[in-house]
């Protein structure tokens, strides 16, 4: 089945047994993102240390296998990374997702997130895969804006 390229084992595993799920303290920002075409939603918190390490990403929400697995893999990939490195993973993930299946994924940067390569061939599902990642990006921006605000 063609659809097996979308639903990689790894994605189904993360979907059935999500990692890092549930909202936790402490956190620097909490965001709520919605996919308006299907009503899927995620609430996501990011805890960023003073020296810019992603200490925790916690989340809750409802959605399809792709959006749920993507949040779980986001957690796996970015927690413990420096913000800079995490943003590098995000950039590679965005490039892969918008590549319509034409972008060669870089496993070194993406890690397990490489499992989403097949999603890029299903344009309608790209938004599902991106939901948590864009929420993470938004939360990090807010933390930084707040810090800049209080510094300046």
């Amino acid at each position, binding site marked *: 089945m*063609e*659809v097996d390229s979308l639903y990689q084992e790894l994605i189904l595993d993360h979907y059935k047994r999500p990692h890092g799920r549930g909202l936790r303290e402490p956190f620097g920002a909490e965001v709520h993102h919605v996919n308006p075409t*299907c*009503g*899927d939603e995620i609430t996501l918190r990011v805890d960023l240390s003073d020296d810019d390490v992603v200490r925790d990403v916690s989340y809750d929400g*409802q959605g*399809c*296998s792709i959006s749920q697995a993507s949040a779980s893999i986001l957690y796996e990939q970015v927690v413990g990374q420096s913000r800079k490195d995490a943003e590098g993973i995000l950039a590679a993930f965005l490039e892969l997702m918008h590549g319509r299946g034409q972008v060669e994924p870089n496993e070194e940067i993406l890690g397990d997130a490489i499992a989403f390569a097949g999603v890029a061939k299903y344009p309608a599902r790209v938004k*599902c895969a991106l939901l948590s990642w864009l929420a993470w990006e938004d939360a990090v921006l807010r933390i930084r804006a707040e810090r800049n605000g209080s510094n300046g």
Partner: protein
Amino acid sequence: MSLTVADGRLDVSSLRHDFPILGRTVRNGNPLVYLDSGATSQKPVQVLDAEREFYEKHNAAVHRGAHLLAEEATDAYEASRSTIAAFIGASADEIVFTKNATEALNLVAFAFGTATALWEHGSGPGPDEDRFVLRPGDEIAVTEFEHHANLVPWQELCRRTGAVLRVITITEGGRLDSASLAAVICERTRVVAFTHQSNVLGTVLPVDQVVAAARAVGALVVLDACQSVPHQKVNVAELGVDLLAFSGHKMLGPTGIGVLWGRNSLLNSMPPFLTGGSMIETVWQYESTFAMAPQRFEAGVPMAAQAVGLAAACDYLESVGLDRITNHEQELTALALAELGAIPGLRVLGPTDTDARGGAVAFTVDGIHPHDVGQLLDDRGIAVRVGHHCAWPLHRRLDAVASTRASFYLYNEASEVHALADGVRAAIKYFGAS
């Protein structure tokens, strides 16, 4: 065309030849099983040919110029209006062309907004427009069934005017709640806007009951007929509503054309929506007067080819027979309700019998998100709709984040319902749920 077999049923396999797209294959080389006509219908060659012929032989800007082509194009456009009017038992001067039903419903909501603004600024409206003025305390009623197209324009109208939006609720079984209807409609109600047939649950609403309640308090009745006009015989004279909207693309016609129906005198008492060329009577440097309806609502060069295509779609539906189409869809719906209903963990949203119910069957599957159900169906060539189908409040009311919806039309076959049920069972197995 001879599209029926001896006992008066539809000859679906012959009729399918009129729809070239139904012959194509999709993912994995599977033949297309198109179960998404609720979103938009496929088009028969008769409609495509009518549009092509218009462009090849008669194309010109309608209602402009005096050359031969302009005359022919105008004739084709106005003849289409007559055909479409007759299709719903109306006369041509009661038919306004819009880009789709969404625009038609907005046109009505904006008529209220404009009349109210004119009244507030003391620059009118004339006595005719008074029906469209909303005063403090006035209320607008909709139902929980509504598509966003018949909800958001009223929300926005309330925001602009201070009118209050009231909502008639539904029963657990997915029917209009009569008690709520009686409780919501009152002396303050100025408009009751509701759907004829739910695009999610398939429920056909009791129009006569709502009209009676609205009439008793002098409220204007606006009917969203998007999901009824394509599938059942609709006669505006029998319905008793004031205004009615539908889209061409859901009834075998082209995209880019919708219809607002209203009695000519009522249309003429409404202030215009979009303004500009074609809709005027006289234009001075600082002010203008407007043409009579329907021209008053058709600003700019209109969608002539789409009107011709929609008229061809009406002819096609007439020749097949609306009653036969309704019966055929009922059979498919009954089959779908039986087959899907027998799948453990599957919940059909809305009525589970075919009484006053059209061919939209939405469902949820325990433990599997509709996106994932839809993806597995797509892998087998089955096209369904997943999400909230532009009825988000309705889904919240039903405790469903989203749903999978199959919707049937004249070209669907029983084998496609079997394929749907097989596909859902396969999805359940694939995701290891239940």
